[in-house]
């Protein structure tokens, strides 16, 4: 097994384990947020193995650096007590989970592998900053500009919502 494959499987497993730790941790929300950081950083390593270098850098900067920090701020600001799983719907959730898991496993083992394309030889600069930047500023410049509008709306919305009182 080559070195990139080792990294892929090791950090993929780390991402899944820390994701489970986040979802199953009912005592401590801060610890759940830290598990989310581990998931994000493991996924960044997986992106590097899959030749998505710009995406990996943004994953660390935006997700692990900004989004999870905002989560931690809010958790500490609100000083939360422990929370539990939904009590009354446990049986429904379990039944639906079993059915969905069996269906998904069946689909994945039987249908998906036949329909997937085989990975071709990719050029050396695939997913580099230059290649993604070229696509972003030539073919996708309008969505790029519109996303700045979305972020502006989100900033204004967050300030309005979290402000104590509007005068």
């Amino acid at each position: 097994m080559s070195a990139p494959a080792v990294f892929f499987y090791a950090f993929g497993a780390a991402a899944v384990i820390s994701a489970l730790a986040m979802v199953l941790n009912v005592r401590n929300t801060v610890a759940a947020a830290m598990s989310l950081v581990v998931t994000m950083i493991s996924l960044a390593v997986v992106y590097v193995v899959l030749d998505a270098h710009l995406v990996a850098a943004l994953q660390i900067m935006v997700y692990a650096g900004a989004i999870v920090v905002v989560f931690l701020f809010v958790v500490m600001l609100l000083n939360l007590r422990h929370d539990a799983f939904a009590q009354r719907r446990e049986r429904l959730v379990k039944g639906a989970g079993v059915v969905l898991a069996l269906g998904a496993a069946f689909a994945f083992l039987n249908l998906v592998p036949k329909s997937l394309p085989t990975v071709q030889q990719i050029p050396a600069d695939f997913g580099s900053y230059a290649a993604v930047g070229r696509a972003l500023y030539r073919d996708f410049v309008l969505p790029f500009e519109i996303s700045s509008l979305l972020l502006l709306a989100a900033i204004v919305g967050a300030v309005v919502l979290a402000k104590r009182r509007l005068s």
Partner: protein
Amino acid sequence: MAIPLEHVIGLSALLFAIGTVGALTRRNLIVILMSIELMLNGANLAFVGFARAWNSVDGHIFVLMVIVVAAAEVAVGLGIVIALFRNRESVNVEDVSLLRW
């Protein structure tokens, strides 16, 4: 090219499933938002895997857009959580039934 696409899609499906379970079963609004982030990350991983399989960088652009939307969603969502906590002293979704008939 050691890693087959099936394994990338499998990992992405696993992360998406874990996020779905968290969003459906947890009652803490903040943890539900975190689980939604996990689902978005599963989708991102699928985009990256398919981009490599088809030798096209467009999938990476989609991932950038998803990251932008996720950041906006977290900012507004946590603003709502703070406003809610100020009014109700709780972030349990069972306490928030204003729109339920």
